């Protein structure tokens, strides 16, 4: 009797649980866990003379990674990602604030105008920047027509150009979460603060920013981390002379034919990411605010 009930219970819960969660579990196992484990294993391997991966333990890839050159590229990538994030906050915050506190009928349109550019393929927009900033591009033509400069200025293929492209790619990921956070702000709080005699600047730092901190944090994570891996921005706008971690990994899996080294570089990148996410959680960030 008892056996029968528990068998029934087993059926009634295990089968549906299996049917519903099974596919996700299989997917995660084969397309997330297994690939990453394989990458971790491969990072301890080396290649033979024909660039084939030889599954034999070595730590040589990691010792290589701690050479000055690779560390410098890591430093440079982190710096570029950091500068990009800071610019996104500095520009994105006031921008999001103005749209979110806008009370006219144009608010919805203003919001849509942030999104519309992103309905065009991202690569072709980055290429549009190249056409705009080039020696014979629009900007130089304008500057020369206005007699501001007499010869074309070299805007392209600099670290700054890469940062510009990164800011361009990621600024909506900063603006939109900030918009949501700022829109939720209770207007009466701000009034109360100013009624109590607080200067606007004090209201900003003691009321507005703390209340929208969650938006800033999640925006920063959503800009900083993907920035490290976006190899095509520095490829298109950086001229191939400002390598980032992404370019380095891409090269190992393509022209350099050194998958184990690329795997080791990826493992480091994963560790950096996890560290940042941990920090984000420590600061009280909600995982569900990322990416959605």
């Amino acid at each position, binding site marked *: 009797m008892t056996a029968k009930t528990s068998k029934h219970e087993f059926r009634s819960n295990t089968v549906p649980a299996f049917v519903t969660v099974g596919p996700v579990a299989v997917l995660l196992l*084969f397309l997330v866990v297994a690939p990453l484990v394989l990458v971790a294993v491969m990072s301890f391997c080396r290649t033979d003379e024909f660039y084939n991966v030889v599954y034999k333990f070595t730590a040589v890839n990691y010792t290589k990674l701690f050479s000055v050159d690779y560390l410098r590229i890591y430093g440079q990538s982190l710096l570029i990602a950091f500068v990009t994030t800071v610019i996104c906050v500095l520009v994105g915050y006031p921008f999001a604030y103005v749209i979110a506190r806008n009370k006219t009928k144009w608010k919805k349109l203003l919001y849509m105008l942030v999104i519309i550019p992103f309905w065009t393929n991202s690569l072709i927009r980055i290429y549009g920047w190249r056409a705009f900033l080039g020696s014979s591009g629009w900007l130089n033509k304008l500057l020369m027509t206005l007699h501001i400069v007499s010869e074309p200025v070299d805007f392209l293929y600099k670290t700054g150009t890469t940062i510009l492209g990164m800011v361009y790619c990621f600024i909506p990921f900063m603006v939109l979460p900030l918009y949501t956070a700022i829109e939720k702000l209770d207007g009466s709080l701000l009034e109360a603060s100013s009624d109590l005699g607080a200067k606007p600047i004090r209201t900003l730092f003691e009321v507005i920013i703390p209340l929208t901190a969650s938006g800033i944090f999640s925006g920063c994570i959503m800009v900083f981390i993907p920035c490290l891996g976006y190899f095509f921005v520095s490829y298109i706008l950086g001229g191939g002379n400002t390598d980032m971690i992404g370019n380095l*990994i891409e090269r190992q*899996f393509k022209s350099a034919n050194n998958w184990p080294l690329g795997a080791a570089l990826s493992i480091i990148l994963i560790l950096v990411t996890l560290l940042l996410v941990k920090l984000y959680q420590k600061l009280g960030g909600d995982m569900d605010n990322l990416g959605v």
Partner: protein
Amino acid sequence: MKISKKESKEKRNKGLSIGFCSMVYLFLFIPIFVVVSNSFNATTSKPYLSWKGFTFDWYLKLWDNTSLLSSFGNTIIIAVSSTVLATIIGTLGAIGIYRYKFRGKGIINGLLYIPVVIPEIVIGIALLTIFSNVKIPRGMLTLILSHVSFSVPYVIFNVRARLSGYDKSIEEASMDLGANRVVTFFEITLPTLAPGIAGGALLAFTLSIDDVIISYFVNGQTKTYPLKVMESIKSGVSPDVNALSTLVLIGTIGLVFLTQSGLLTGKHKKI
């Protein structure tokens, strides 16, 4: 006196914020202007950057560029099939994770964040590694599998957000009234979750359609539209690519405005 000073200050602030926002909008739209205007460029020599006069030719030539069109077709096929798969798997998964107790639930929940937070390039090389090790030929299949793998978490998050406000007692009532599990699922559970599912599906679709980095590693010889653009960037983007982008942009904007104004959903038809 004091009031007018305050007013003038407010006016100045308003001017400042309008100026600042216009600059940001300009920044966002500069490349769009470049892309659209270059689709009318009469130039025929690479790298297609200098302006040689106005023409509509590229909008006609576009229809002869079969490799560009078929890459766009591939993108749509991949986006639609990966969205359908991800939506089904994700919706079931979200319900199952929410409802049932089982071992490893915490692990699954944790793993779901991986494709969301890890930089795409790592996902791309990891998928390439596994596909090449188990010898699955790279192409449509691997593209669809990869796109499913990175979209499922987003579907789950969207459905889960809907589930958290979900009242289980309606389902129990349905079962009490004699409906079986399957009927209850289709008649009660799904309609309630519909907005979350639709949101997740939309997100999966948009992620798939603009994906470059992961596709770049697992595409084999199947070209998607973003990869085709990447290839054309190597030798100078020809204006017909700009023309297609412009058409897509116009089409999207048009449809959004139609849906927003309710013409498509038929909201206005009710008198």
